[in-house]
């Protein structure tokens, strides 16, 4: 047997090259993208859990297709608790400790309002998924984008539906004292007033449990229609306590908030919640595109739920849009991602996502307000109603607008 000649310098160089390569790969891969979601009270945990699941499915699907820039992505999900101060701290943590290159998700408007300045000042692009407050994009910050509808726009659908309901002369609005609830209630009150309908607004802190006193006061107002703008379990608590007192969805016309779209939690927490109206973002399931159908199937299999909620669809797309923008930018540099986002055309589960207004074209050029900056203009909003006790949210009847309608609304006397 011949003697094997060992070239020690060559081996050392080879090891060094491999080591440096691994280091270089480890430094850039996986590419980390942040995900904001309320996973503890007083935030809307139901919404947060749904968004987390959707963002993890986005991570899985993107990685299955080869990832981004040759790397897998890692969605780092962080709990905002629905609190602005926590959101700002978590955004700071995502950027400085976790090293994310962009951030998606976000449920509560107050989270968006508080965290956007942190991201913008550090040059990290954010695509907010479900934060409605107009000022989030209204400040026209370079790194801030949104695929959720504007509060003024979504509130418009809510009050217009209430205004066209039969015999509505007075409305009670029960809202939360947050960056979502206060402007949304003001928009509703203003819109109703323009139709000659009087309204009274009650504001409560996020996470309120006991509504007994407020329910009695609402009862004394003798409203024809109630609009509830409470997120999370506060929405459940108010609706069931109102139902116990005889002013729930089966007693007067009643708009409940989006948390009701998680039907399992809705029926468990609000057993008397039949006939409640809710606003839902996105087209009805019958009009889902192929990727939305696949996502819905995967989501149902993972969670055991009957359908996928609109905020889960938005969370999924917020990660998808960012991933495509990074690919098109060819780098993880914040400025390059912003440029890519401003030019993007992303076929998402919600439809084709694009941002017509930004540094290339100001919203004012089309006579629009600053809130349209980096704002996706096409999210569909429908009004849906539970019409059978215990029915899953994916079979809810779409009662408004006409273009998506699947049935007539049931109005209680």
């Amino acid at each position, binding site marked *: 047997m011949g003697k094997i000649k060992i070239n020690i310098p060559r081996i050392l160089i080879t090891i060094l090259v491999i080591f440096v390569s691994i280091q270089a790969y480890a430094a850039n891969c996986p590419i980390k993208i942040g995900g904001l979601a309320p*996973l*503890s*009270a*007083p935030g809307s*945990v*139901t919404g*947060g*859990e749904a968004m987390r699941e959707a963002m993890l499915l986005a991570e899985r699907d993107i990685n299955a297709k080869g990832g981004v820039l040759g790397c897998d992505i890692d969605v780092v999900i962080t709990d905002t608790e629905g609190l602005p101060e926590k959101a700002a701290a978590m955004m700071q943590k995502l950027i400085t400790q976790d090293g994310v290159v962009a951030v998606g998700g976000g449920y509560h408007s107050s989270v968006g309002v508080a965290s956007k300045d942190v991201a913008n000042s550090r040059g990290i692009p954010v695509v907010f998924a479900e934060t409605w407050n107009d000022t989030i994009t209204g400040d026209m910050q370079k790194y801030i984008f949104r695929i959720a509808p504007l509060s003024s726009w979504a509130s418009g659908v809510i009050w217009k539906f209430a205004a066209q309901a039969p015999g509505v002369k007075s409305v009670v609005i*029960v809202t939360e*004292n947050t960056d979502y609830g206060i402007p949304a209630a003001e928009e509703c009150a203003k819109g109703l007033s323009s139709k000659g309908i009087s309204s*009274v*607004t*009650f*504001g*409560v*802190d996020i*996470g*309120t*449990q*006991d509504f*007994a*006193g*407020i329910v*009695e*006061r609402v*009862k*004394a107002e003798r409203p024809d229609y109630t609009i509830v703008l409470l997120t*999370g*379990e506060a929405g*459940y*608590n108010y609706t*069931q*306590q109102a*139902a*116990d*007192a*005889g002013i729930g969805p089966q007693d007067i016309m009643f708009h409940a908030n989006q948390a009701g779209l998680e039907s399992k*939690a809705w029926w*468990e*927490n609000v*057993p*008397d919640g039949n006939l409640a109206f809710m606003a839902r973002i996105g087209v009805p399931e019958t009009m889902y595109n192929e990727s939305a159908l696949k996502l819905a199937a995967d989501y149902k299999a993972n969670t055991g739920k009957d359908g996928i909620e609109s905020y889960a669809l938005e969370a999924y797309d917020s990660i998808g849009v960012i991933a495509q923008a990074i690919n098109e930018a060819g780098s993880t540099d914040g400025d390059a991602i912003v440029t890519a986002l401003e030019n993007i055309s992303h076929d998402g589960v919600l439809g084709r996502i694009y941002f017509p207004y930004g540094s290339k074209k100001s919203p004012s050029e089309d006579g629009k307000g600053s809130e349209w900056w980096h704002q996706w203009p096409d999210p569909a909003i429908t009004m849906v109603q539970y019409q059978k006790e215990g029915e899953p949210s994916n079979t809810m009847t779409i009662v408004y607008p006409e273009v998506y309608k699947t049935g007539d609304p049931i109005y209680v006397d």
Partner: protein
Amino acid sequence: MEYSAIFWWTALWLIFWGVVGSIFTRRVYLRKDLDTSNSILVGAMVGAAFGPIGLVPMWIKTPEISRKLILIPGFVALGIIMLAFALADPENNCVSNGSFVASQITNGLIIGIIYGLMALGLTLIFSILGIVSFSHGEFYMIGGMIVYYSTVVWFPGLHPVIGVLIACLLTFLLGAIFERLFLTPLYDGRIDRPVEYGILITFGLAFTLQYFVQAIGGSNPVKAKRFFDFPRIRLPDKEDPWLIKTSRGNMELFDTVSISNPRFVASVISILVLLGLLYFLYRTWTGKALRAVSQDRDAATIAGINPHHMNMLAFALGGMIAALSGATLVQAFSWLPQVGMIPAMRSFVIVVLGGLGSLPGAFIGGIIIGLVEAAGTGCVPDPQKASSYIPAYGMIVLTLMLLLRPTGLLGRRFASGTHGKL
């Protein structure tokens, strides 16, 4: 408010003479070498109720301070402010709508009873062990969770009352075990700073319980079914049921007061438990021993009571009472691992208001807070503010109480328990 000036000038008048009375009455009593322990409170009440007409004769005669001397001017001052409110805002529901007022008072009383029960557990622990249990809210949460899991998840169909009993048993055991394992260093001299240790260790327990439940069951809100449905009653007759009318989830009395089923059931259970607790504390040897330790730990020891056993019993019983409050309310509110934070804070307010370590004080404090919150929510004219300030109403009452009577309603100047003995 239509004539707001009437209300605000009256309030200003009451505050001015209340402050004058509280400052000078104490000085007058001090100068005459009389007992000044309640002089600030009496001075404030007499000043607010009668102004100089009441204060000057009192300063001249300096009568012995009695409960009557506090309560009568107190109610007169309350009456004056209510009258001013009625004149200032005659259209307010609290003035013009009798059924609304009755409903608010009923709701305030019902929730006050439940608050009082929860605070009772906290004050029991404080009076015996001399520590404030920061895990009280988590016992409340655990109580509700056990009822939910035992009746909906683990044994669907199990009657909720059995679930409540299971919750009581498990939380009693949890409290007893925790006390034996972690609180004994408080009284056997193993640590230098027992009060701080007590605070930190119960904080630790609170976080452990909260995150344990979150890890096991998730953070989604859950709710137990109604324990009982109301039977369908229409009295005195079906056509005109002005006396009582019930549906499954609601009861209406005299065509005016409506009470929701979960609250009614929770308050009835609370009252029954309270009666049982009073019997236990005042009629049984163990209960008397507990009270004896809370009053004078050394004397109780000399009388043959083992204070260490009473410590364990007090912590277990206090935790169980909090859990019981949660167990009865899990049918009324959506339940989360963080659900105990607000009730715990409210319990601290009630315990301080009622007097640290006072069992009747905790219960009365609970009812006062329930009524004040109901009054604030119902009567503040601006609906937005009325509902936004709910947590503040109790704090205003507490602040006033601490200013006028720092020991609380029925508190003692020196609490017993382990204070100063370690």
